[in-house]
């Protein structure tokens, strides 16, 4: 006997069945391709930069060229051709097994969906600085904001957007500050607070603002939400992954950091005989 005894309302699914709806646009065959109301071939191609259209695709909003150039600079900052970086390492491993360039690049880019580095950190970074500014505007001091965050991590200065793995200091934040100035952006309230937090962290913990923190504060000053920032940077690390893949593809297969058996430290159970049957 069915558990669904009464006739159920399936109107929502019936509406979407065998149809596709889009608020963004699409291809009207023989007429044109439309994107958020723009005629792509006539209003976007050759008229707007790739970054402007990428941001449009991510947010539904076409940014001015200045902001698009800023976004492009961030993508350069986050696409290093160093295969020691986790996402790039995956690209290089794809190269050594002769995966396709797309497979390796996408796999490495997916690895950037991480709580520790890459695209996803922007969610926590933007959330933090926006909450911090709200608290600051309510009269909470910078020191109190920091101590509140440290208390969540046993007194350690673990705040998304500040400090970074492997090294202290972040040359990318400095480079982006320079780019921001060159493009004519001023320091907004979130960025100002981020620098104030950095001053205290630097004094008390010898830690500084990182690229995630810089980007998070900047985008918050551009009125972006945490999710919006994350969506706009979905492919952030991809170009560096491709570079690492291609460097390895140019070498003999299987030679990217190959491991001898003894290069693996075995920490498990000693050799044992198989029981006659299941326990």
């Amino acid at each position, binding site marked *: 006997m*069915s*558990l*669904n005894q*009464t006739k*159920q*309302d*399936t109107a*929502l*699914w019936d509406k979407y069945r*065998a*149809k*596709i*709806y*889009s*608020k*963004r646009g*699409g291809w*009207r065959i023989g007429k044109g391709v*439309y994107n*958020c*109301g723009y005629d792509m071939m006539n209003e976007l191609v050759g008229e707007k930069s790739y970054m402007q259209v990428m941001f449009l695709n991510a947010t539904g909003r076409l940014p001015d060229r200045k902001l698009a150039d800023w976004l492009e600079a961030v993508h350069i900052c986050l696409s290093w051709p160093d295969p020691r970086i986790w996402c790039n390492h995956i690209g290089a491993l794809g190269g050594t097994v002769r995966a*396709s360039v797309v*497979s390796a690049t*996408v*796999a490495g880019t997916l690895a950037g969906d991480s709580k520790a580095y890459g695209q996803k950190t922007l969610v926590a970074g933007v959330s933090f600085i926006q909450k911090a500014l709200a608290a600051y505007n309510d009269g909470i001091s910078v020191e109190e904001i920091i101590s509140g965050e440290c208390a969540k991590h046993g007194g350690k200065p673990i705040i998304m957007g500040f400090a970074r*793995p*492997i*090294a*202290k*200091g*972040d040359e990318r*934040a*400095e480079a982006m*500050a*320079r780019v*921001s*100035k060159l493009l004519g952006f*001023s*320091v907004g309230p979130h*960025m100002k607070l981020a620098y104030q937090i*950095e001053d205290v962290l630097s004094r008390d913990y010898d830690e*500084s603002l990182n690229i995630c923190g810089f980007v998070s504060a900047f985008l918050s000053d551009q009125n972006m939400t945490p999710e919006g920032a994350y969506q706009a940077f979905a492919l952030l690390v991809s170009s560096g992954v491709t570079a690492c893949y291609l460097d390895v593809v140019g070498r003999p297969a299987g030679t990217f950091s*190959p*491991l*001898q*058996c003894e*290069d*693996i*430290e*075995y*920490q*498990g*159970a*000693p*050799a*044992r005989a*198989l*029981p006659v049957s*299941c*326990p």
Partner: protein
Amino acid sequence: MGKDAVKVIKREEQYAKKISTKIWYEEPTEQNPYIAQQSRCHGYDLIELVKGRSYVEVLYLLFRSELPTKEEAAIFEQLLISFINPGPRHPATRAAIVTGVGKTDPVHILPIALSTMGGNFQGAGEVEPAVRFLRKNVKKDPKQVVQRLLDEGAKPAEGDWSIAPGFGSYFGGVDEMAHQLALQMTAQPGSGKLLAWGNEFANELHEHQMGWLKTGVAAAVLAELGFLPFASATVYQLISAPGLLAHGLEYCKKPMTSYPFPEDKDYVIESD
């Protein structure tokens, strides 16, 4: 914008010199240190496992570090069969099919489909919170938990309501397959208190057109088998892989016209 020049200094952190593992040991040959002459899984010789153990037992061993009991192996096998295929309507399967029909390299079918299977709705992303929910509530009265969730929660204005992770409505009603699979596995000797509690909880939800979701059933069984919440989510992906791949491969040899491409009249640009 900006401050003084930044000094970048390498941290004095100690990174491991070697990869370490408790799972697998490879014994090198004397002649070539890159070539293994024996592989062991948690201490057991791979050749012996090949000769004397089922796939289900070795799969369990791989993740749980010990061979399963007969009861554990039996319910684990039933779980693997229960969710071997999300079915051709599931978005992850459709991703596999589109990969196949689109003439994409077939080696990409699984990565593409499993990425989709990682979603938080009807996917692996729902399994981890479902394990946590079951563990947290298993000692509570299911009827009271349902009442509290009904009182505290808000049914969405449209679409399905997942009143708790792993439980809710499915296309507006009770997912009958999830219910049947839960009962089937509950009848196994290896079944435990999480499945039993989930059945009671689901029964209380039926009058509200809700019940078990497949992800909830999988979560209950995996948790009872000792899988950690985050591991349960990923194992659910693994379990679904055969079905996803089969559907993708089925379409590899079919023409591109064999998958629906909606007419313009059925493609609605809402800004029109």
